[in-house]
């Protein structure tokens, strides 16, 4: 349709129908709110990334020389808090999910547009408290807030940081609630559950965890605050409390939170792999079921963070066994993505490169999960760099790869412009190399026994740490590059057609960028998801 390169008068869309700051701050359009989230979390991503870079620079030498011990402790604490609560958890659901879920199910908006805006404001208010914490000297509890360290042994801004996360948690709960209601109630005629794109299934599974899990985080942080302010004996044994109680409460949320971070990414990858293989997803039902299985089983494995914490022998065995159960649906997903490529027609566009990266890195992250779930091995590697590497392979190698892939994939829809493809491919490659160089040596470090959260370390660990730091600088370049060309493309990018990838799904049947109400009239769905058999392939480019 819009294949003419001559500057045609721009069609009205959600970006140009209103102007001015208040048209953004008071918008209830899910697409505009998605962009508000995009700006917010990008800001926090670079703050968290800056902390990470300082951590890696400090670890270049065995001595603690770049920053003070307390500063270092604050850096890894705030790196974790900012990245998890202000980037990873909102990343795919609040940006891509917000933008796409109503469109993918054929709706005009989310079920509660105002609550959607409120969620963004809550994240911003939480973000203000986080920023205040950072600027006023920081906090050094570790992102885990372990008691009694966090309640009675630190005089940093523990309450402010806890409050920041407490508030951001409600943003997450409301987003989840909004998604659940929307997906149940707002599907277009014919959009049955078995026709939903897997991206919607993934966000649905995530929303369940957000709604059921996050309140427990709020409770744990509130109890920390109560013990800290009023000296109520909840966790500190000197007051009659139990420090392990905190760990149980904390991980009851924070392990499922790992799935809040990875499930939406899995949804993104399913969309990308099918599109760039021009093929149906292999085993749709199993893929959807696996998402729900991960969400449910994810609630039953929290104490695998506590195998050496002092829980009973048999409790540890039960949690180890359940952790292996949750690995099964994750394996199913990897196998199905790979099988989807079988006999496909595969294009190596930037989103697909990220999908390749995701599958590879998530597989490695998942496989090392088998190591840490094995009780006898976990005793040795828990609280070492092995665990740090393991969860970064899932969170950064998995989730951030998926997020970047998704951002490139739907950028034409979000912005109405194409990003420069070759720059995109280059950045994906740099990120992949930088990531592996950063985190692979950390597996070795952990197996050798280097504990995490160490400001200074024994000299024999230096070579691997230098490699890791070198990788981190490459990674930083890889993340800055898309930032530059995305901004560039908003003005100079080639205008995007409605369906530049030849992709299936309702979002590709409306204009790029969409109009405020997405559809001129409510669509009636008569096809399965990923009906690539009915779609023409996009013409080969370049």
């Amino acid at each position: 349709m819009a294949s003419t390169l001559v500057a045609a008068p721009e069609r009205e869309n959600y970006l140009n129908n209103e102007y001015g700051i208040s048209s953004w701050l008071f918008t209830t359009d899910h697409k505009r709110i998605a962009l508000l989230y995009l700006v917010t979390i990008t800001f926090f991503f670079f703050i968290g990334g800056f902390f990470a870079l300082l951590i890696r620079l400090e670890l270049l030498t065995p001595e603690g020389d770049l920053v003070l011990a307390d500063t270092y402790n604050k850096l890894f604490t705030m790196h974790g808090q900012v990245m998890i609560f202000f980037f990873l958890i909102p990343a795919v659901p609040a940006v891509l999910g917000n933008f796409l879920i109503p469109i993918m199910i054929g709706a005009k908006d989310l079920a509660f547009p105002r609550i959607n805006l409120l969620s963004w404001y809550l994240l911003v208010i939480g973000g203000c408290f986080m920023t205040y914490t950072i600027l006023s000297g920081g906090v050094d509890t570790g992102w885990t807030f372990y008691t009694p360290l966090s309640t009675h042994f630190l005089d940093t801004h523990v309450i402010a940081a806890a409050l920041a996360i407490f508030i951001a948690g409600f943003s997450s709960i409301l987003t989840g609630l909004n998604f659940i209601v929307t997906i149940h109630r707002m599907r277009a005629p014919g959009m049955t559950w078995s026709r939903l794109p897997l991206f919607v299934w993934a966000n649905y599974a995530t929303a369940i965890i957000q709604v059921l899990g996050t309140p427990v985080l709020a409770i744990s942080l509130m109890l920390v605050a109560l013990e800290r302010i009023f000296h109520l004996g909840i966790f500190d044994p000197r007051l009659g409390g139990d420090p392990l109680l905190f760990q149980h409460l904390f991980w009851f949320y924070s392990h499922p939170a790992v799935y809040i971070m990875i499930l939406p990414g899995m949804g993104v990858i399913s969309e990308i792999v099918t599109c760039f293989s021009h093929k149906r997803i292999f085993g749709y039902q199993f893929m959807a079921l696996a998402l729900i299985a991960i969400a449910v089983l994810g609630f039953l494995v929290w104490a695998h963070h506590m195998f050496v914490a002092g829980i009973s022998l048999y409790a540890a065995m039960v949690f180890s066994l359940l952790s292996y159960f949750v690995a099964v649906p994750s394996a199913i997903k990897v196998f199905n993505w790979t099988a989807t490529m079988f006999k496909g027609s595969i294009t190596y566009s930037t989103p697909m490169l990220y999908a390749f990266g995701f599958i590879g890195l998530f597989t490695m992250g998942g496989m090392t999960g088998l190591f840490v779930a094995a009780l006898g091995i976990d005793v040795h590697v828990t609280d070492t760099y092995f665990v740090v590497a393991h969860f970064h392979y899932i969170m950064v190698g998995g989730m951030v790869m998926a997020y970047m892939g998704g951002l490139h994939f739907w950028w034409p829809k979000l912005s109405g412009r194409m990003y420069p493809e070759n720059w995109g491919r280059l950045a994906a490659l740099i990120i992949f190399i930088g990531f592996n160089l950063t985190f692979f040596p950390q597996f070795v470090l952990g197996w050798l026994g280097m504990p995490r959260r160490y400001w200074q370390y024994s000299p024999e660990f230096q070579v691997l740490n230098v490699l890791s730091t070198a990788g981190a600088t490459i990674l930083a370049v890889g993340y800055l590059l898309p930032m530059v060309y995305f901004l560039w493309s908003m003005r100079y990018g080639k205008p995007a057609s409605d369906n530049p990838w030849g992709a299936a799904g309702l979002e590709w049947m409306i204009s790029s960028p969409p109009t405020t109400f997405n559809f001129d009239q409510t669509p009636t769905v008569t096809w399965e998801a990923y009906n690539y058999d009915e779609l023409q392939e996009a013409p080969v480019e370049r």
Partner: protein
Amino acid sequence: MLSNTFPLWPTRASTISGQVDALFIFLLMLCGLMCMAIFVAIVVFAIRYRKRPGHQATQIEGSNAVEFTWTFIPAGIFLFIFVWGAYIYFLERTPPRDSMDVYTVAKQWMWKFQHTEGQREINELHIPIGRDVRMIMTSQDVIHSFYVPAFRIKQDVLPGRYTIAWFRASKAGTYHLFCAEYCGTNHSGMIGDVVVMEPAQFQSWLNGGGPMGSLTQTGEGLFQSLGCSTCHRLDTQGRGPNLIGVFGKPVLLEDGRTITADENYVRESILSPAAKVVSGFKPIMPTFQGIVSEEELNALVAYVKSLTAQPSGAAQNPTFQGPAASKADTTRQR
């Protein structure tokens, strides 16, 4: 070892470390193989089915048979790994009977060790080869974690209770001791050395400490000076229970429960006497919270433990003398 500048494998210096490494190597090979299979499949598919003129995607819906295959085969493999890992963990968590006990107090940012013979050490732990060593550990402040990579052993050290780790060193040398649980400012400085010695050397090290009295003797002194002995009389039944022969045995409580008198029970009874009162006695004992230090507590626990064997002189093995029947009883009731 410490001198090596670029090691890729940690030293094996305990009997359990070989078992841990065996499972680790098995997992490396298994996961390496599975990763390779997936990576190769992706690369092959990406090249073979690349988009090109004249090539069309074949639409495949999926296959239940295939799905079940790659659900149940991995599940079976996972179960196998679970059992293997759990077996090693069971060994790691089950201390043998006649072990050498080392009492440990962790604090920000220091490790303090008390040998039963009376030697005290800070950030340095001397132990002999070939002897089962049981670390009875507690923390004075926050949570720490006792971690010796060469032994593949790690155990969090909690305030307010004892946790236990055990190992048997198999190779002489000096090994890292790390605190593995983040504990505040100087967490990375809370490190030390574990010195594993030949038994003869260790004995002379023990003897070289000078006359300071064993931990039990220290405990006995405290037992007198704190006035414990006025109620817990050793000759006859006083206002508190006679403690001879109590340790390691089941104890009937006032509320009808039966528990085993282990280190944690003795500790709790000193700090929170009213928590688990022995049947037939009144909760009249005052708390010693804040009166005895962690080190003194350890000495008292060691003394109460020693009361099991001494008076009769008949028993050689100080622990687990209870008749098999009564032991089975306690396990059931716990």
